[in-house]
């Protein structure tokens, strides 16, 4: 069953602008992860945030987690055309064993 839901489903911006993607989920989680997928390729892990963390940074990426609202956001600063891809959030539910449940994804287009 779907756990994470990304919002918006598609976003088009200009190079240099910031891109913000949101993810909402329904149950208690151990961690939440963001992945990127270029068209026709496998997914690549971007960043993981644990349930006891509120914010995490990695290069141009900033992830926040609000467990009270069951939501997370991924911010990509100073976007580049190469950031064009689909982005997915995935959650590891408490009691969810060895599984990651993915959202439907969000298509980001960065125009040069």
């Amino acid at each position, binding site marked *: 069953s*779907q756990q*994470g839901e990304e919002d918006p489903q598609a976003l088009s911006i200009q190079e240099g602008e910031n891109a913000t993607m949101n993810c909402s989920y329904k149950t208690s989680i*151990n*961690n939440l*992860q963001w*992945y990127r997928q270029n068209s*026709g*390729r*496998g*997914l*690549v*892990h971007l960043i*993981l945030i644990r349930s006891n963390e509120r914010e995490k940074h990695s290069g141009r990426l900033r992830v926040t987690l609000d467990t009270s609202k069951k939501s997370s956001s991924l911010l990509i600063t100073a976007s580049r055309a190469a950031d064009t891809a689909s982005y*997915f959030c*995935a959650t*590891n539910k408490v009691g*969810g064993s*060895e*599984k*990651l*449940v*993915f*959202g*439907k*994804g969000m298509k980001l287009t960065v125009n040069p």
Partner: protein
Amino acid sequence: SQTIHQWPATLVQPVGSPLSLECTVEGTSNPNLYWYRQAAGRGLQLLFYSVGIGQISSEVPQNLSASRPQDRQFILSSKKLLLSDSGFYLCAWTPLDVAATNEKLFFGSGTQLSVL
């Protein structure tokens, strides 16, 4: 370093034909292995996962089956394909020693299956 291999990259099969997709992981032992399917415009659906040789957990009832004959080999099969089996199939792994906290997944490059 660890690598994951998945093949073939694309596959076109007639309805009713059998299917065998293979995934192997190198450079690690006792990985957790996963098969996901991605339908067009949809998210990833977990099909099967395995925590060890011969141990398969199925997530959804379907026309597919999975097997793990060796530690680092994961096979997705079907005896008779349906049109609805079309999609992008992804194999993934995690190191067993961190699986308890479900660290990140490492994905293969995927197989685009078209059932006609």
